[in-house]
């Protein structure tokens, strides 16, 4: 059973191997409900794998992953599907269906689960599209719009069912700085409006410093440090300092 007192996401001694390669090495951390938690670090250190483990797309080699209080390894396929209805996920590429319009993509979760009348679905889709600034683009197909618009439509799809936890995999990769700021603002906005816990994987430390409650710096399958942005800026950890210097973010 889960309760609201339990963290949104909890890793306990999680290891993940792919063949002989160890990606996560005894990872332990928790993301509280309503928190904005950012995982940052060099490429290939297990950031996206952490997100996939937290959302049940991968199973840990050892250890326990709990999502909204439920042990993901102990869930049946049906129970996992039911739990995922309380979760939103923004993929790096957006992962919209190419043969559907942006509005149809956003409506997909509602139409697939739901028993909502078409009129209500249309209203909710329009509201979600308006929230991400795409009120007039609903009838366009993914191939007809920019990468930033695809990301925002995918964002609208992720929040359409008002999830309790939102996962973001590189939400600003490949976007210009203005669009990156827009996405960062949307993460803050959706967190404040819907109260959803947000777990973000990114390389964009400048953006993370703006909206994160806590930042975890991952290297070689373990967090070197987990701290609020102000402490990250003054972190004595050399790897974190190198990351800050590389992005020209002096304390």
């Amino acid at each position, binding site marked *: 059973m889960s309760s609201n007192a339990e963290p949104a996401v909890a890793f306990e001694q999680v290891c993940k191997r792919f063949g002989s390669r160890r990606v996560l090495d005894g990872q332990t951390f928790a993301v509280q409900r309503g928190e904005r938690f950012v995982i940052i670090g060099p490429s290939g250190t297990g950031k996206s794998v952490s997100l996939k483990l937290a959302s049940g*797309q991968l199973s840990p080699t050892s250890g326990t992953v709990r999502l909204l209080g439920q042990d993901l390894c102990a869930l049946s396929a049906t129970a996992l*599907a039911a739990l995922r209805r309380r979760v939103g996920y923004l993929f790096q590429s957006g*992962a919209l269906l190419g043969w559907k319009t942006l509005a149809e993509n956003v409506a*997909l979760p509602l139409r697939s*689960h739901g028993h909502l009348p078409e009129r209500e679905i249309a209203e909710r889709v329009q509201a979600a599209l308006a929230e991400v600034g795409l009120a007039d683009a609903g009838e366009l197909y993914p191939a007809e719009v920019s990468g930033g618009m695809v990301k925002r439509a995918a964002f609208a799809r992720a929040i359409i069912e008002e999830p309790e936890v939102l996962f973001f995999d590189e939400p600003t990769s490949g976007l210009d700085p203005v669009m990156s700021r827009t996405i960062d603002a949307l993460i803050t906005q959706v967190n404040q409006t819907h109260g959803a816990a947000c777990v973000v994987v990114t390389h964009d430390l400048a953006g993370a410093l703006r909206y994160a409650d806590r930042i975890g710096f991952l290297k070689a399958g373990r967090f070197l440090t987990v701290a609020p942005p102000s402490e990250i800026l003054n972190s004595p950890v050399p790897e974190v300092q190198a990351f800050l210097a590389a992005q020209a973010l002096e304390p």
Partner: protein
Amino acid sequence: MMLTREAAGSLAARLLSGLGLTAQVTALASLGLPRIFLERECRRTWARQLYVVGIGTLAVATVVALFTGMILGLQLGIAFRQFSQELMVAYTLAFAMLREMGPFMTGIILAACVGSSMAAQLGTMTVNEEIAALEMMSVSPVRFLVVPRLWAMAMMAPLLSFYTCVVAFFGGALVGYTQLNIPFLQFMGQIVEAAEVKDLWVGLLKAFVFGILVSGISCTVGFCTTQGAAGVGASTRRAVIYSFLAILIGGYFITRFCYVL
């Protein structure tokens, strides 16, 4: 020796795992038939797939069937003329097309034209994380993508098989008229006389099963795609090869089951 045994064991394990997964996906999708009638989204995809399978392959099926009928007519005509039994061409053509060639050709056409595109589409969706996105939205990819495709192909394949047979008869009759001096109506009359209802039903059953096999295999291979664009290409090739093998093996067992020596 040890290495060979290990490699054979690994190959057998992969084969069994692949067969198990294909059986699982095909069985799940087969049981999903009511969804076509109950869910609007599923019905729309199913209708689109009916068009792709039926209308989309009609031109290829027509050319293949016409020339197969003409080739068979010619070869059989050459053989039977030696015994002055030209009319046996119609009998033999009816027998061959209804029992084997019609459903077999339909299966091959569907595997090459539609199965390959199904594997490529689902493979691309897999590498683009669209399948993972569906799972994260609690939308079953089997229910959403395989059910309409599998039932569209299963329903269209018998119709296409029947159409293929008719076109092949026409091709045979054309050769009969132009090169064997058999009047067109007499040729067609002989075919109707030779055709048995059981042959027709067994042929349609075969086409139905081939439709399920081709779509089930192609979708499963698509879902198992890895490694980007190269993986999509490999999946497309695998889907066609596995479908061909399944059609041949499945065809033998249906014949063995339906006709006693």
